[in-house]
């Protein structure tokens, strides 16, 4: 499985990671090698096998539908790189 540079760029775009031209060139064979190696899973006959959803049988719980959290705005914002007037701030997204 070869991963060409255009594919590396597309994947990096989906993952929201900026990459330079040199990085794309380096990653192309690197990702190709790893994907080549995991290709071998294709040879396993999995007909009729259900994909794993939970390693240990465990019933998903429901909790009471009540408010258990909140009123901690300052804690939520405490680690924000930029917060103003009680909100997270980001670059302008609406022209």
């Amino acid at each position: 499985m070869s991963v060409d540079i255009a594919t590396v760029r597309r994947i990096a775009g989906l993952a929201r990671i900026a990459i330079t031209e040199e990085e794309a060139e380096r990653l192309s064979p690197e990702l190709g090698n790893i994907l080549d190696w995991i290709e071998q899973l294709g040879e396993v006959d999995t007909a009729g096998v259900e994909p794993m959803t939970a390693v240990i049988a465990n019933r998903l719980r429901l909790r009471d539908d009540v408010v258990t959290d909140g009123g901690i705005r300052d804690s939520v914002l405490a680690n924000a790189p930029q917060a103003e007037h009680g909100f997270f701030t980001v670059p302008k997204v609406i022209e």
Partner: protein
Amino acid sequence: MTDLTELGIRDIRDGVRAGTFTAREVAEAFSAAVAAAKPLNAFLVETPEHALAAADAADAARAAGAAPKPLAGVPIGMKDLFCTKGVPSTAASHILEGFTPEYESTVSQKLWDAGAGMLGKLNMDQFAMGSSNETSFFGNVVSPWRRADGGNAPLAPGGSSGGSSAAVAARIAPGATGTDTGGSIRQPAAFTGISGIKPTYGRCSRWGVIAFASSLDQAGPMARDVRDCAIMLEAMAGFDPKDATSLDLEVPRWEAGLNASLKGKRVGIPKEYRVDDMPAEIDALWQRGIDWLRDAGAEIVEVSLPHTRYALPAYYIIAPAEASSNLARYDGVRYGLRDLPDGANLQEMYAQTRAEGFGDEVKRRILIGTYVLSAGFYDAYYTQAQKVRTMIARDFERAWAACDVLLTPTAPSAAFALGEKAADPLAMYLNDVFTVPSSLAGLPAMSVPGGIDAGGLPLGLQIIGKPLDEQGVLDAALAIEERAGFVARPGRWW
């Protein structure tokens, strides 16, 4: 007076209870040892004030005649994957540099509630992705061990819990927390001659543990011996409503239940673990392990786990897929690093922040995960891997009809030198060949020292158990520990 840093968890606990020494003396001795061990780079943050406060509380409670807490007076190291309130928690990454949680992880809170104190936050592979500690943004940990060849090549302490393994092996912490996604407790324990157990998936809460691959991540203790692991695991485990996959079960009294007699037990030897080009020393160690368990009363049976060879490729689809999803949260908005070039828009800010904040291995895994989950590939990779995972779990279920625990080597080699495998990601991944299958099946598994190789470095044996049978794992590990007589330790050079 004896050097208190020579003592493990049980001896510290019992000595503090008996009044042989005070908890403060213990905390001071270990904090001084931590401060004097900077060349190991095991600690990212030192918190002697936390350890001393817990120690003073333990001493005051004893003076007041209160019933002692399970870990009263025991200072430990905390892997930096656990969020600790008011203490920076970075997962050894740049993107979380400066992040100071406003909350405490469930596992660390349980340890503090049990009376333990924190010596500091331990270095690790960035976001727990790595087997050598070389992916830490803050520089690799150096193993306290050196080869006996006089060459002094700096060695890998294993990973990802390499700060934990180095600290315990160097006797600057009597115990430490680790986390294990594909072997991150067991392989570093094997590399440094200590013990470590990954419990059944769901025993320890994942709440407040910085997520890597959520269906695999499990916390566990790393300590000098099996009993110390049992003591620490009792304090770490237990139901937590804040973790949807937490098991609502009583925590067994593993320490009280320890029993090194394996009479009536059957130990399975999986033939597929005899991999090609396995070093003769590893094979010989495995045989010694078999002899020790037979000597402890166990019956040895050969078993087959036919899909073993597919475990690693399945893992390297599932873990990166989950990581790519989990690490999407690092966006430069809510916490951690933000890189906002002049005039950049929101999308550019995300991409630039993540390019700047993630290390190469983390990016590699996010990209692999993004690729295998992308439109058109999802079924061929991710669904197929989860089906193979089901088959691997079934292999183990069938084996349990013939045996109670499995014995294997922990890793295919002793510790390698730093830099030796860094250039080849695949060679590094193959180091997890013996630990990954049990992770995929959510089983309890433990590494215990078995001996040293010709180069003077520790080798570990792994015990894998049935779901929820940590007791069986600990007992078999104890039987090995009692017979291996492992006393080697690194000479102090730091």
